[in-house]
């Protein structure tokens, strides 16, 4: 069943619910979409280190248990760092939600299929890793309900969002050092 939900719609649906949460976005499409739809100082964009988005989010959640952290990862990237799901399950931070834009392809490099296009389910892998609140959603309605849960309930959550293939238009602003500094200062000010 091919997905109809777009990354743009899924990002905007989150952005309209955000208040003072931290959002960590994966390199490439997730960061580009977040920058264009909802740039804010509490966004932590990543530009390299493919696979590390979920680990950066876990570190933030552990360092700041008073702040809710939402990661926007990609299926290809999380597949590079599946061990992160085990560490999230073991540390079990209540303030962490890992959302995966799962379009079943390596989008940035031209749309080559990932393992989720074949037989692998990231929600099932997360449950196997020990994350009890692991969901897979396909529609705007389901996603809205999932967002309402991850922004209110104790986590950790893993939410695989099945989205349509396709690139986000535009160009990522890659002020790598500047965005990291802006984010760190904004989070420090949120005491």
């Amino acid at each position, binding site marked *: 069943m091919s997905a109809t939900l777009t990354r743009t719609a899924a990002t905007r649906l989150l952005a309209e619910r955000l208040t003072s949460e931290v959002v960590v976005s994966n390199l490439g499409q997730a960061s580009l979409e977040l920058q264009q739809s909802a740039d804010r100082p509490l966004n932590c964009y990543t530009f390299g280190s493919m696979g590390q988005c979920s680990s*950066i989010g876990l570190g933030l959640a552990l360092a700041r248990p008073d702040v809710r952290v939402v990661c926007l990862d990609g299926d290809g990237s999380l597949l590079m760092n599946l*061990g992160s799901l085990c560490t999230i399950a073991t540390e079990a931070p209540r303030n962490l939600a890992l959302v995966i834009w799962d379009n079943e392809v390596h989008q940035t490099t031209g749309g080559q299929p990932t393992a989720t296009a074949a037989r692998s389910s990231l929600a099932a892998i997360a449950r196997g890793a020990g994350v009890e609140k692991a969901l897979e959603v396909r529609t705007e309605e389901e996603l809205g309900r999932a967002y309402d849960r991850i922004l209110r309930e104790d986590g950790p959550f893993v939410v695989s969002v099945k989205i349509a293939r396709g690139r986000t238009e535009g160009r990522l602003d890659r002020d790598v050092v500047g965005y*990291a500094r802006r984010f760190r200062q904004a989070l420090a000010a949120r005491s």
Partner: protein
Amino acid sequence: MIDPSWSKHLADVLRRNDVRMFATVPDYIVSHVLEHLWADPECRVVTVTREEEGIGLLSGAWLGGRRGALLMQNSGLGNCVNALASLNVASQIPIVLVVSHRGDLGEFNPAQVPMGQAAAPILDALGIRWIKPSSVAELEAQGDGLVKLAYTRGLPVAFVLPPELTGGKQG
């Protein structure tokens, strides 16, 4: 003669410089340091599945205001190279690496040797300042300065731990 208090001295250098968040894939040598950190209620130690995960985790912790150190063997340094380059060096995110040096003087396992010999050139290629203290006195003389440099410069630094300091691992 190996001074067995080296591990306590290293744990103390880290703690007195406000490093209290740790990630590790343990090995025989760094586990001596971990014993002191596990026993300290002010320290958080996360065992990760692969060292690269520790780079992401501690980078996130620093963005959240906490200093972190990753304890591993030099094989783990090999697993971290791209994350160190494209996350820490590119974004100027400091992190302290504590790397037990296998594959050098006295090594018994041939499989350890190539990475052991590559460790220092890899750190140099990434522009990571490192020290290799061969005694507790050297560790005490240089340790505070190394950690301070990481946060002044906003880049990773590394303690490389040779068998002259730790006793290594006997095969």
